């Protein structure tokens, strides 16, 4: 049943409900595709039995007319989500072998909605990276190739690189991702799929390995906007276990989908025309504006004056929060332990030296430095003040527009090893994605077209607080007009 793996999540759900195929056939099709894709390194652990068990439950529930929203759907889960009894390592050596005795709220919600799990998806270590190259399991290889006849291995983006590659390669109909500064949207753009980061607090962070708590937010990645709406509905919801969880009802985003944008004003931020960004990216942005106009929307020029300061603000706040969050990895409660020398403190230092990779150490060092005595106000408090201004920019902008359209990333996917030696160049990849993260706003990437090398490019929609529906609807309008049907040619 290889063809089942080419259907969208909505088509799988509806076909299963109509009795066209069984949930077991879906799970078996995906288990086979996953097993045959080891070259891509998208999964760190596979759980075919889990997918089959959920499928069998779905098949018997169908007999009893007791179907749940995701009955019959197997999903890939980013390795940042705690999954009871299944390895959860955040792509790090320090958590090698960690099997949580508990389940994250988001994955518990997905299971309650009937979904099964195909396995855990590779990612940048502790979600710190934009290329999936910092993973302790090695990089994920994008299923996409340049059309230049060369055979360069490309990044699927990061940190949700395994998640993005799995959807693009047909190794899952939908996956979970997490986004701290663009980690759902940039990999979605690089692999020609859709992904949405909801408003901060929509999805519970409980049981998701923490990176930067004031920014981290889970969201879905899938082939289509509709699939994202279906998944987000199942993932989101109030959770008393997360004190930052939003106590609002979850809208019926799928039912509310409409690509009619009449009366909507689309903000085009002038500060996002950045020097050095390839013409192709700006040309796609212009096409996006035309598509939204065609859907009935009116473009308006807006200003987000502190855009330039978003990345440096992010690279103070995120490492500061990370250095504090990652203090828990000390060789005592979980993960690896290195005895070292010098008693307890020596053990901590040796364990952390052996367990963390170079990028994680770099960020812990930056974070510890900016939080240290004498520098706290100059760096950390200053960054929080600039963050307030960035938030204020968006607040003002949304007085004159309903949504904001920008490119997702400043380039198409780059080759593995191309940017690893220069941390700053790597950080710049998130230039369009980070401001919405700092402001806690819902934001989505949808495929817009291919560049001259045949690689996907994404368009990025930012909505006002809690307006996931507006973001999804504009995403749908672009999806319908872009007619993006390109798929990577199977070589793995």
């Amino acid at each position, binding site marked *: 049943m290889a063809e089942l793996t080419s259907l969208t999540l909505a088509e799988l759900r509806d076909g299963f409900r109509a009795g066209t195929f069984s949930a077991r056939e879906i799970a078996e099709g995906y288990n086979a595709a996953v097993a045959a894709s080891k070259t891509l390194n998208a999964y760190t652990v596979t759980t075919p039995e889990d997918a089959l068990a959920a499928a069998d439950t779905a098949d018997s529930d169908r007999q009893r007319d007791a179907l749940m929203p995701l009955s019959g759907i197997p999903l890939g889960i980013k390795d940042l989500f705690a999954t009871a009894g299944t390895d959860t390592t955040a792509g790090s050596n320090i958590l090698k072998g960690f099997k949580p005795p508990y389940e994250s709220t988001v994955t518990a919600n997905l299971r309650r909605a009937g979904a099964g799990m195909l396995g855990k998806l590779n990612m940048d270590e502790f979600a710190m990276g934009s290329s999936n190259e910092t993973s302790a399991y090695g990089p994920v290889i994008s299923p996409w190739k340049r059309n230049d006849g060369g055979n360069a291995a490309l990044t699927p983006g990061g940190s949700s690189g395994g998640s993005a590659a799995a959807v693009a390669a047909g190794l899952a109909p939908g996956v979970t991702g997490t986004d701290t500064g663009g980690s759902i949207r940039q990999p979605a753009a690089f692999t020609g799929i859709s992904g949405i980061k909801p408003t901060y607090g929509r999805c519970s962070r409980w049981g998701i390995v923490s990176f930067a708590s004031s920014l981290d937010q889970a969201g879905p990645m899938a082939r289509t906007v509709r699939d994202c709406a279906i998944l987000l509905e199942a993932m989101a919801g109030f959770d*008393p276990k997360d004190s930052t969880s939003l106590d609002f009802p979850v809208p019926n985003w799928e039912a509310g989908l409409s690509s009619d944008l009449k009366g909507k004003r689309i903000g085009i931020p002038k500060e996002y025309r950045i020097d050095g960004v390839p013409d192709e990216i700006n040309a796609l942005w212009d096409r996006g504006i035309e598509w939204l106009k065609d859907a009935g929307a009116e473009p308006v020029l807006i200003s987000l004056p502190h855009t330039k300061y978003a990345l*440096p603000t992010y690279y103070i706040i995120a490492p500061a929060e990370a250095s504090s969050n990652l203090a828990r990895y000390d060789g005592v409660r979980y993960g690896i332990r290195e005895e070292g020398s010098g*008693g307890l403190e020596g053990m901590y230092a040796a364990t952390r030296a052996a367990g*963390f990779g170079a990028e994680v150490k770099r960020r812990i060092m930056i974070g510890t*430095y900016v939080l240290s005595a004498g520098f706290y106000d100059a760096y950390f408090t200053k960054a929080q003040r600039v963050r307030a201004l960035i938030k204020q920019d968006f607040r003002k902008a949304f007085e004159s527009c309903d949504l904001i359209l920008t490119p997702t990333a400043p380039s198409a996917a780059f080759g593995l090893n191309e940017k690893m030696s220069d941390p700053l160049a790597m950080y710049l990849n998130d230039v369009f994605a980070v401001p919405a993260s700092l402001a806690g706003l819902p934001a989505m990437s949808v495929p817009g077209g291919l560049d001259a090398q045949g690689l996907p490019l994404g368009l990025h929609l930012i909505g006002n607080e809690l307006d996931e529906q507006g973001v999804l609807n504009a995403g749908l309008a672009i999806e319908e007009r872009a007619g993006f049907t390109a798929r990577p040619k199977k070589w793995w």
Partner: protein
Amino acid sequence: MSVDTATVRHVARLARLQMSDAEVAALVPELNNILGWVEQLAEVNTDGVEPLTAVIDQKLRLRDDVIDDGNVRDAVLLNAPDAQHGFFAVPKVIE
């Protein structure tokens, strides 16, 4: 502000990260590069701007002060690299 090897060693100690001389030497220019870049925030006028701590305006909830789980000692210790007699075991800290 720029960091030197002594500062990097001090920060590594605060962060509980054991580092070789080579790692410290490599981090000095990397951290300086990144810190030099983030210092552009100094040019933003933030007088009278309150630092943003909660990105979506809402009051931090307090939960009721009641036990809602418990009796899960074995689950808590399940992943410990070393557990003895129902406790986390660590290297001796008192002679």
